Each structure stands twice: as structure tokens, then as C-alpha cells.
């Protein structure tokens, strides 16, 4: 498809500017020439051409509204339309962040209530809604842990991270000046307790744990894990990326987690937007309350207002108050589901994942054959060994069957990993058809492996040359 720049034709525009109703001054008399730019090389497009360009681009994009999107660890559930509608109310979109608090009482009430609702759901003392995404929430959580030990005048250098963790975990720890130490998984896919005991010293600030972990397995020994970490004065950090597995069934706060970050765009159904905006609220237990980012909302008789008066706070992690409009959608979602609805969603997410696991088990290697939570992880090892077909080939072939591929090659401890997360909003028929496609591909891998390796055939472009893209980077178009 042509680039917008290639469609450009001098003299056209898709947006006119109102005529000035004030005197048009001589710009050079106001702003010295040295501060002014010469060229302004933006595309010149008519409105219809602009609309067609982006509409045609959208047709080359796959979203949840087009089909099944079982991208593990990303919780690609249906994004209810009503949430888009309510978040677009001008009352929510139109306020400046520095509007007087009296004029923002609806927004403040919504955010304050959201913090309370999340606290009830996760069993935490309080939440901040400021972080813009899950990884941003992780960073915020780790900063609070750093501050906690600073306040206690304890120097702790290390953070423990399981080998199955998301890549953001070690990066978030490192950006707070911690050294990360890898914690082994045991044969069941859980924390290796002996290894944890040997690593957990008074030099360890925290264990960053995802529960259920990235294999989709719940940590059975969570009580023991928490006791070991707390026994040495350390804190337990929870990565809430997998929260869709347990809402209404258990609460991280009750299990001993001191801090947890969420992803509203996963668990609470807000759209992923092609890679954002998300929202990454962070919940804390009593130990970390004082360190939450500022500003915080205070409720008084006369209403809600922002307060900066928290001397031990880590400060701000972004300007203003967070991705407010995303929070509006998640709030509407929680209120429309209620406690029972959230629990039912969890149960059916877990049922769907186990159903896929059972149906595909005969056809793909299942490294950890246990009841899973909201996602299951297969390995394409057998297909590689027997047919020379890799997980990436299977993923690309799924595209031809009309599906978005699962997450692949993650977690790193499973070779040729295929990580499938169906979510609760998919019907049994959808799961059956998807499993049929996976089984057909397993069969095809044996009978006609080249066909799988040549996939996808149905897309506007074939497999793209990643190596060329990295070797000769072209990240901005240049006029030839």
C-alpha cells in the first residue's frame, strides 16, 4: 500500500483553519527569524483520500472484533462497546487536568471509587491509578520497594525473579538500581522452594512473582513462599498480568503480596489500542502505603480533592493523574459485571483454557500437565523434531485459518513455546473451531510441512524480513 507521503499532492488539505478574528500580525516582528522554521513537510491530502488511506490500513489489521485472538499473557477479551460510549461523554473527555477540583467531582469520585473497588477485589490497602501501563506500574512498585528500604535505612541490593518471568520484571528491577537474581522453577512449574530458601537473604529486597505464573499455573506453595520472603524482611511483589485467572476466587493481599500492578487493558476489558493506551494501577499493602505516588485523592465532607501532602511518597511517575479515560472504561466494566459477574468471568476463562488444553494435548507436547488457570502453554518440540516445523511456522499458518496466533517463544523456559489464552468471552464453538485448526496444522506438519513453512498465504504481505529491517534500519521515510 502507498504511504501517506506518496499520496501527497501540493495544495490539498483535509482540515481547514478558521479565519483569524483578531489582527494578523507580522510574525517576524514578534518572533526573531532565528526561532522560526523554514520547511514544513507534512502530507497534503484531501479529506476523502485521508479517510480511504486509514480505512484501508485498518483493513490490514487484525483485532478482537474480527476474530479469535488467543494471545497468551495479553488477555484479549471482548471490549464492550458501551464502555467506549460512556468514556466518550464530553464530561469525561473535555476537562483540563488543572480544572478546579470542584469542577471535577465526577472524575475524582470515579477514580476514588475505582481505587476502593480494586482494593476490595485484590485485598490491598489502597491503589494508585497513575501508571500508564503494566510495565510502568512495575517500575512504580519497585520504586516504592526501594523507598521502603531507604526509609528503614536498610541497604538491599538484590531482587529475585523466577526464570519464567516477563522481561519487564528484570528491567524494572534494574531501573531501580537492583541486581536481579534468577530463581529456578521446579519440575511442576512452580517456585523451587529450596532454591528460594538458599537465595533469600537479608540482601534481597523483594521477590517479583507472577501468580499464576507465565505457565498459567497457580503457585500452590504461595503461603510458604511469602513466609520465606517475609522471614528475611523482604517484600513480595506481584505481577498482576495474569489477574484474569483469579478475580473472585482469591486475593493477592490475602496471600501475602505487598504490592501488585494490574493491567486494566487485560483484566478489565479496556481495548489494547494496537499497543496502548493501557493503564497500570498499583495496589499496596499497609507496609507501602506511605510511598504511593502523588497526588492522591482525599475525600472530605465537602467533596474530593487532590493532595500532595505525602512526605514519604516516591513522587510522580508521569504528569497529571494517569490514563483517566481508560479508567472510566474499566470502572464501567466492573460496575456492569458486579462481584458475581467478575467471578463468573474468571471461572469461564479458566474453563476455556483447560478445555483447549485437553483437546490439544494429544497433538502437541504439554510440558506441565496440570490443571491450568486462564492460559495453557504447549511446546512445538515434537513438530520440530519430527517435521522440521517450528512454532513460528505454526503461528503463521494459524493466520491462514483466520486466527491471531498465540504468544510464541514465551515463557523462555519452554522450548518452542505456544502460549494460548482464550479468555472468557469466547464461545465453545469458537474454541472447537480453533482446536480443529491447530489439529489440522499438526497433521499438515507431518503430511505437507512445506505448506506450513510457507504460511501465511492469505495476507497482504508474506513473511517479512526481520533481519533486513534490523540490519538496514528504515524507521522514517525519506523522499527519494
Amino acid at each position: 500500500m502507498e504511504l501517506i507521503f506518496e499520496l501527497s499532492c501540493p495544495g490539498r488539505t483535509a482540515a481547514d483553519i478558521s479565519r483569524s478574528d483578531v489582527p494578523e500580525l507580522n510574525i517576524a516582528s514578534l518572533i526573531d527569524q532565528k526561532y522560526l522554521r523554514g520547511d514544513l513537510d507534512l502530507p497534503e491530502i484531501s479529506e476523502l483520500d485521508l479517510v480511504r488511506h486509514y480505512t484501508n490500513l485498518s483493513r490490514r489489521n487484525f483485532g478482537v472484533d474480527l476474530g479469535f485472538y488467543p494471545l497468551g499473557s495479553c488477555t484479549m477479551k471482548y471490549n464492550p462497546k458501551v464502555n467506549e460510549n460512556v468514556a466518550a461523554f464530553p464530561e469525561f473527555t473535555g476537562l483540563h487536568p488543572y480544572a478546579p477540583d470542584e469542577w471535577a467531582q465526577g472524575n475524582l469520585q470515579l477514580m476514588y471509587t475505582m481505587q476502593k473497588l480494586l482494593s476490595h477485589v485484590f485485598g490491598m490497602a489502597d491503589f494508585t491509578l497513575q501508571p500508564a501501563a503494566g510495565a510502568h506500574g512495575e517500575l512504580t512498585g519497585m520504586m516504592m520497594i526501594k523507598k521502603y528500604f531507604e526509609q528503614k535505612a536498610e541497604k538491599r541490593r538484590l531482587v529475585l525473579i523466577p526464570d519464567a518471568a516477563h522481561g519487564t520484571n528484570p528491567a524494572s528491577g534494574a531501573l531501580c538500581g537492583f541486581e536481579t537474581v534468577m530463581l529456578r522453577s521446579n519440575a511442576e512449574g512452580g517456585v523451587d522452594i529450596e532454591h528460594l530458601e538458599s537465595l533469600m537473604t537479608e540482601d534481597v529486597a523483594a521477590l517479583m512473582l507472577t501468580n499464576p505464573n507465565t505457565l498459567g499455573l497457580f503457585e500452590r506453595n504461595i503461603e510458604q513462599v511469602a513466609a520465606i520472603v517475609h522471614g528475611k524482611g523482604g517484600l513480595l511483589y506481584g505481577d498482576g498480568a495474569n489477574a484474569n485467572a483469579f478475580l473472585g476466587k482469591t486475593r493477592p493481599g490475602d496471600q501475602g503480596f505487598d504490592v501488585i500492578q494490574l493491567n486494566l487493558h487485560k483484566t478489565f476489558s479496556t481495548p489494547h489500542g494496537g499497543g496502548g493506551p493501557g493503564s497500570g494501577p498499583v495496589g499496596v499493602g499497609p507496609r507501602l502505603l506511605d510511598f504511593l505516588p502523588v497526588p492522591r485523592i482525599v475525600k472530605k465532607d465537602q467533596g474530593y480533592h487532590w493532595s500532595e501532602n505525602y512526605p514519604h511518597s516516591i513522587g510522580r511517575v508521569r504528569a497529571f493523574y494517569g490514563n483517566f479515560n481508560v479508567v472510566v472504561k474499566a470502572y464501567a466494566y466492573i460496575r456492569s459485571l458486579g462481584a458475581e459477574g467478575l467471578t463468573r468471568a474468571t471461572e469461564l476463562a479458566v474453563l476455556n483454557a483447560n478445555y483447549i488444553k485437553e483437546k490439544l494435548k494429544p497433538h502437541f507436547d504439554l510440558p506441565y500437565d496440570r490443571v491450568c488457570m486462564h492460559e495453557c502453554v504447549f511446546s512445538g518440540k515434537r513438530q520440530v523434531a519430527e517435521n522440521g516445523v517450528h512454532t513460528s511456522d505454526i503461528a503463521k499458518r494459524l493466520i491462514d485459518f483466520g486466527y491471531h496466533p498465540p504468544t510464541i517463544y514465551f515463557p523462555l523456559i519452554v522450548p518452542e513455546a505456544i502460549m494460548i489464552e482464550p479468555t472468557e468471552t469466547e464461545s465453545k464453538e469458537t474454541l472447537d473451531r480453533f482446536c480443529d485448526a491447530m489439529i489440522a496444522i499438526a497433521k499438515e506438519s507431518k503430511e505437507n510441512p512445506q505448506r506450513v513453512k510457507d504460511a501465511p498465504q492469505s495476507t497482504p504481505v508474506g513473511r517479512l524480513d526481520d533481519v533486513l529491517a534490523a540490519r538496514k534500519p528504515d524507521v522514517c521515510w525519506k523522499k527519494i
Partner: protein
Amino acid sequence: MDYCPHTSDDIAQMLLTLGVGRVEELFADIPEKFRLKKIPDIPPALSEQETVALMKMIGARNQLPRLTLTGAGAYAHYIPAVVSHLVGRAEFYTAYTPYQAEISQGILQAIYEYQTMIAHLTGTQIANASMYDGASAMAEAAVLCGKMSNRTKILIARSVHPEYRQVVATYAWANGYEILEIPNAPTGQIDMDALAARIDEDTSAVLIQSPNFFGCIEDVAPIADAAHACGALLVAGFTDGTSLGILKPAGACGADFVVGEGQSFGNPLHYGGPYLGIFAAQEKYLRRIPGRLAGATVDKNGRRGFVLTLQTREQHIRREKATSNICSNEALCALAAGVYLAALGKNLRKLALLNVYKAQYLKARLLQMPGWAECFSSPVYNEFTVFCPDAQTVNEKLKKEGIIGGYELATDYPELESALVFCVTEMVSKDDMDQIIRILK
């Protein structure tokens, strides 16, 4: 409302496949003592109609202003109708990160086009797919400068947005860097003597904004020279992105990184978010910058296509060695920015000029009133700082008429008591401004 399609028959059949009697058995791994019977204190479910009614009621507790005269990092601009229509296509907004390039060409190409437009606007050669917001983009640039140089000191102009300075301070503290502020000269621009006095061989970066928080346009080139003379890098932010329609971008004046808030480009005020952080850089930093990058390549038949590229910089590959932990971007906001910029095209210059004319009109009218005076002499874009008899009284008067007044500087700059920063965009008409003067008289 229940979005799950499962009938009781479906559930029964699925359980049969699993050889399990009850759904509850699937949660057996959760230790009994941590099992929850019911989430406490969550109100009961609502129908769709009830949800809409509830949200209407909450929204009604807000009061929308008739006019907004505060900018300070968030700008009220007119958004052409095409923007929401195109960004509202579900193929875009219900997708995730384009890891599977063949079925994500839409967002990948749109991001590539966005990167191209941003690099051009900022006077640099490259831009990433966007960061969380302007403040965190500046903080990430500061941390990157520290990591690249192994130097521990960061200088930041006091005329940078107060909240941006706080975010930079948070990130710097976490990474063990020291922050020093550079005051402004009486002109409103950075005090070059103070900069010269404080910069040294341990300085990794100088952070400025132009236009700055007071609205003043900085003379970027000499600041870049001063930074480079000490081996430090210049991170230049901006306030309102539409200023780039007429102002010479910092990237063309020697800045190494240009960062800032992209909200002005087609994104509503949204009470502070979601916005998008613009992150642009000179080409030599391509393999060091944080965040996602869309890149052009070809498929096996030689057809042009786009992928996420240079991922070896990123946390999911480099893990603890990555210079940033950022994972996602603000793709949909960047899409809106791309559509907005493509819609305006060269009219961005016209829009910028209109903003200048309007701001000059209000400024001139305010300065005619007794007790009002210009605070700084430097040229401005659409924000300007003025002294007035009493900032709080002025804003109270405007508030009574449904107008958000100027930003009161006294809290963040005690030395500028009774100073207000006003912002005038194309959303404010001459009649509005004449009325403002009548209210204040």
C-alpha cells in the same frame, strides 16, 4: 451485563471433556485458606442501560468550563471530525502490539508514518512509536543519557514544567542520579551564566523545554553548544506541539533528543490522559533509544511491509540489561496524532500562526489594564506570563463565569507571586477575549 456466551449445556459438555465434575475443581491449586467466597463490597451487576445511567450521573458531577485559558502541558485544540472516526475503527483499537506483522500492517504502517512526521516536525532523523506521556519521555531520555555516559549529574532548567521536573526527579533518584536546577534569566529564558557555572565533566544531560513553562521560546543552539562542550547531551522538550508548525525545532538547533507531549495532535484533554510521549532523536542514537520502533522491510516477494524492529534494545530480549523497561506505547494516541497531522498538513503552520495572533491579542488587552505587566521579555507562542494585581482574585472572577483562568505560578515559583500563565488557542474567540477583559475590569 454478562459478556460470556456459555450456556449451562456448554459448561456441562466442556466439564465432561475435562473429566471434571464442577468448575470449582479447576481452582484446587489455590490453598483453601486463601479461597474467596465472594468479593466483598462490590455493588451488584448493572444492565447496559443502568450502566449508562450511572455513568451519566457521575459525569454530571463534573462541570465543563465555557473556556479554558490554562495550557501547562495539556492543550484545548479543535479536533477534526475525521480523527475520531478513523481512530474509532475497531480493527485498530481492538488489536494489540503488532508482534504478528503480516496481520498488523495497518497499525505498523500508521506508526511508521507517525514516526516520519514526528522526526520531521522535531528536526531529528528518527522517532519512536511513542512513550507514555511527555513527562515520562523526558525522564527516560535523561536516564538514557546517564546510562550512555556513565555520568551521574543531570541539569534541568527551572522553566521546565514543574510536574515534568518531578517525574525526572523520581526516575533519577531510582537510578542514583543527582539533579541540579538551572534558574531562568529575567528574560524568561534559561540563565546561560548559571548553566555555564553548573555544567561539568560529570554532567550527562541538560534538560530544557522550548517553548518553556512560562511560554518563552528558548535560544536552543547556544544551550546545545554549552552542553556539548562538556560532553553532555541536550534533551529538549516542548510544551504545545502545534508550536512546531512555525518554530524551528530543537533537533535542528543541536538537541540530541527532542521529547514532549503529543496530546495537542488530535487527542482530547481527557483530564490528563491517555496522552502520548513524543520521543525523537538524532540518527546516531537509533540503537539506544527506548520504546517500540516500526521499520520498513520487504517480504520474500520483495513487497514493502513493516515490522517492529531493533527489538534487541528492548526489555523482553535484553531483560535486566535494557536501558528502559517500557513495553507498550500509546499506539492509538499516536495513530490519532498521525491522522491529525496528515489531515492538517501544511495548515499546521496556519493553525500555529492563528494561535500566536490570538495569544498576542489577549496579552495586549490584559496589559492595558492597570496593575498588569509583562513578566518576561522573550518571544512566546500561545502561552505568556503576566503579573496581575492578584492572581487568585483574577481566577476566581473568571471561574464565576465558567472560565478556567491562567496557571498560578506562585505555588511552584514562589518568586513569581501574582503571576499567571495564560494559554490562548484557536478555541478562544475575539468575543470571548473581549468578554474576559470586561469580567476582569
